[in-house]
C-alpha cells in the first residue's frame, strides 16, 4: 500500500465513508444513524475479534513470552529437571549466533546439534522456495494458457489437473517416497541406480519434483482466473491493429494478469517457506533437506522454549518476505480483489 490509503480500498471503511457523504444539512440525524450503525457493527464484529484474539493473538504472544525463558536444566544432585528461569535473548543467540552450552560455558554449536543447523535450514528453506515457486510459476502459466483456450474436453482437463492438488500432502509425500525408493518406479523405469534419498542433490531434487507436481495446479488455476478476467475485445482490438501473438502476450496478457499472478506467487512463497510434510516424510530431514519447520518440530522434542524462539524467528522471516512482496512487488490480495470487484460493477 502507498502512503495514502483510499477510503474505499478496504471493505470495512464503507461505513465511515457513508457518514462523510451525508455531511451538510441533516447532520444530527445522520450522526445518530452513524452511531447506532457503528454500535451494531461493533457488536457484530466483536465475537470475531475475540475469537481471533484467543486463537491467534494468545498463542503468538505466549510463544514470544516462552522464547525468553530458558529451557529446563538437570539438577545434577537429584537427576530431576528444574525450570531454567529468565533467559533474555539467549535462545535467540543460540539460533542466530550458533551459541551452545558446553561443559566449559558457551561455545559454537558442534555439528550434529540442532543449533548448528539453523542457517543451513534457513538456506534450504529459501532454496526450496525459490526453485519450486520458479518452476510452478512457469509450468502453471503454461497450463493456464492452455486451459484458457476453448476446446473440447476443457472441463475434463481442468478437473484432471486438480487431482494432484486434491490429494493430501502427506499422502503425496508417501507416494513419492515409494516412487523414489532404490527399487522404486523411477529407478526401474530409467534403469538407473540413483540413491534418491541417500545424498543431498538427489534428495532435494526428489522433494522439488514432488512439490512442483503437487502445487502447479494451484498456481495454474489462480492464473487461469486472472486470464479469464481479461475481456476478449482487448485481444480483438489488438489483432485489428496488427499486434503479433508475442506482442499481445507481452503487452496485454502479462500486465493484465499480473495482479492475479503476484497473489498466486505470494501464496505459494508463504506456503513454501513453511514446507514441512514433503521433506519430513520423504527424507526425515536427512541429507540437507531440513527446513525451518522440520527444525522447529525436532526442537520441540528437545526443549519448548528454544523451539518458541525458533518459531518466532521463522514467523518473522515469513512476515518480512510477505511484507516485501506486498510493499514493493504490488502483490496485495485485498487491494486488487476489491479494486477488481469495483471494476466489474461499473
Amino acid at each position, binding site marked *: 500500500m502507498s502512503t495514502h490509503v483510499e477510503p474505499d480500498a478496504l471493505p470495512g471503511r464503507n461505513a465511515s465513508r457513508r457518514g462523510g457523504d451525508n455531511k451538510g444539512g441533516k447532520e444530527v440525524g445522520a450522526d445518530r444513524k452513524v452511531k447506532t450503525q457503528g454500535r451494531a457493527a*461493533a457488536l457484530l464484529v*466483536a465475537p470475531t475479534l475475540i475469537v481471533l*484474539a484467543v486463537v491467534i*493473538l494468545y498463542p503468538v504472544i505466549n510463544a514470544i513470552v516462552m522464547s525468553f525463558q530458558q529451557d529446563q536444566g538437570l539438577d545434577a544432585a537429584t537427576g*530431576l529437571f528444574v525450570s*531454567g528461569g529468565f533467559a533474555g535473548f539467549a535462545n535467540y543467540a543460540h539460533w542466530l549466533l550458533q551459541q551452545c*552450552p558446553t561443559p566449559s560455558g558457551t561455545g559454537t554449536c558442534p555439528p550434529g546439534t540442532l543449533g548448528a543447523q539453523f542457517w543451513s535450514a534457513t538456506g534450504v528453506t529459501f532454496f526450496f522456495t525459490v526453485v519450486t515457486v520458479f518452476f510452478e510459476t512457469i509450468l502453471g502459466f503454461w497450463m493456464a494458457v492452455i486451459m484458457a483456450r476453448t476446446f473440447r474436453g476443457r472441463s475434463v482437463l481442468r478437473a484432471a489437473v486438480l487431482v494432484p492438488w486434491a490429494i493430501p500432502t502427506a499422502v503425496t509425500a508417501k507416494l513419492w517416497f515409494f516412487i523414489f525408493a532404490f527399487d522404486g518406479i523411477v529407478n526401474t523405469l530409467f534403469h538407473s541406480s540413483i*540413491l534418491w534419498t541417500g*545424498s543431498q542433490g538427489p534428495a532435494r531434487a526428489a522433494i522439488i519434483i514432488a512439490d512442483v507436481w503437487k502445487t502447479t495446479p494451484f498456481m495454474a488455476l489462480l492464473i487461469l482466473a486472472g486470464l479469464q478476467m481479461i475481456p476478449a475485445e482487448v485481444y480483438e482490438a489488438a489483432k485489428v491493429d496488427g499486434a503479433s501473438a508475442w506482442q499481445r502476450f507481452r503487452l496485454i496478457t502479462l500486465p493484465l494478469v499480473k495482479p492475479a499472478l503476484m497473489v498466486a506467487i505470494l501464496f505459494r512463497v508463504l506456503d513454501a517457506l513453511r514446507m514441512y510434510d514433503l521433506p519430513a516424510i520423504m527424507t526425515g530431514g536427512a541429507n540437507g533437506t531440513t527446513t525451518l519447520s522440520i527444525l522447529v518440530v525436532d526442537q520441540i522434542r528437545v526443549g519448548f522454549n528454544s523451539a518458541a524462539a525458533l518459531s518466532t524467528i521463522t514467523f518473522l522471516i515469513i512476515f518480512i518476505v510477505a511484507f516485501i512482496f506486498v510493499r514493493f512487488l504490488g502483490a496485495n490480495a485485498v487491494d486488487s480483489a476489491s479494486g477488481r470487484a469495483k471494476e466489474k460493477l461499473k
Partner: protein
Amino acid sequence: MRHSKKIAPLAIVSVLAMVLAACSSGTSGGGAAASNLDARGPITYVQGKDNSNVIRPLVDKWNAAHPNEKVTFKEQSDNADQQHDDLVQHFQAKTGDYDVASVDVIWTAEFAAQGWLEPLKDSMTIDTAGFLPATVATGTYKDVLYAAPQTSDGGLLYYRKDLVPTPPTTWDEMMGMCSIAKANNIDCYAGQFAQYEGLTVNVAEAINTAGGTVVDKDGKPTVDTPQAKAGLNNLAQAYKDGNIPKQAVTYQEEQGRQSFEAGKLMFLRNWPYVYNLAKTDGSSTVKDTFGIAPLPGKDGPGASSLGGHNLAINATSKYKATAKDFLTFMTSAETEKFYATQGSLAPVRADLYADADLVKQLPYLPVLLTSIKNAVPRPVTPFYPAVTQAIQQNSFAAINGSKSVDQAMTDMQNAISTAVSK
C-alpha cells in the same frame, strides 16, 4: 467504526490478562510422588495401538477378578512419536488421568527426570529377580527403578544357510564371508543405515560390540575412545568396501527385509518380527533357506541394542496401590507368556526362553535370549532426543564417507556433551 476501534484494545488487554494468568500458573512444581500410595480404585492403562489384541483380553481378565478396581484401557495411535507427545501432554497437565502407562525404553529416563513417574521403591517395590538384567537397566534412572520391564526386543542376524552353513560369530569373520555373496552376485550385509532412529540402534551396537560405550554411567559422552572409533570404523569401512551395499544408506527395517526376502542380501541385521514374515510371506524366496544367529561381535556374540517397553506408574495417580498390583499382573510370568504367544512380543523373564511350548511356537527365542543377554540399552539419558540426533547426523556422515570417522567421533562427542550439559 469508532466503537470497534475501542474494542480491539479491550480484546488485546483481556488476552494479555489470560497470558499472564497462564504464565503464573504454568510452572508450579509437582511433589505428587509418594502420595496416594495405599489408595485403591478404578484406574486407566495407556499404551500404543494393540495390534494383535493382547491387551484387551488381559484387561478383561483383571476386571473380572477386581470388580472394584476396574481398569479402563486407553489405546493410543501406532506412531511412537505421537505416543510420546500424548504421554508428555497428560503427564505435564498433572491430572493423574493416566495411571499406568506403557513407556518405550528410550523415554523412561526423560519421564523419570521430569518427576512424572512414581519410583518403584519402598512400599512400591516390585520383585525384579526374574527379569533379564538388561531389561531392568532400561527402567532404571540414577540407580532407582522407575518402570517395570514389560516386553523386550533385540537384534538378530538373519543369514542364508544355503550359502553360509555356519553363521559368522565375529564381525571380521562375517566380512570375510562377503566374497561368497560377491560370487553369487548378491549384497553381503545390511542393517538400518538411513538417517533415523534405526541408525542410532545400529551405531550403538557397533560401538558397544567393539568394546566402547556411547555415554558413561553419569550420562557423559564417551565416544572419543579408540574402541568407540573402531566400532564406527567397522561400518564405515564395510560401506567403503562395498560389503554393505550402497543403497543401504536408504534402508530402514522394511527395505532391508524386502531385499533379504527377495534373495538379494546374504546377511541382515533386524528385529525378531522379520522371522515370521520371512517364513510365511508369499513373496519370500528364502523361506527354507534362512537361519538366525546372534549378532556377530568382536570375539563372540555382539552387543545388541535393546528395544521394548516398560510399565510405569504416573506420579499423580490417585490409586497407586491398584496401579502397582496391575503393573505386577501385567508383568507376571503368565502374562509374559501370553504376550509371546498372542503378540510375538519378546518376554522379559529369563525362564520363559527355556519354556518348551514357547520355543516350539517361536523358534527364534533361544537366539534372542543370547542377543538380549548381551544387549546394552541405548544411552539412558533424559536428553535422549538430542543425543540420538547427535549420533545419527555424525555417524551418517561417517558411513557415507562425507566425514572421516575421527572427525565424526569428535563432533559426536562435542554434540552429545552440548546436549547433556544443560
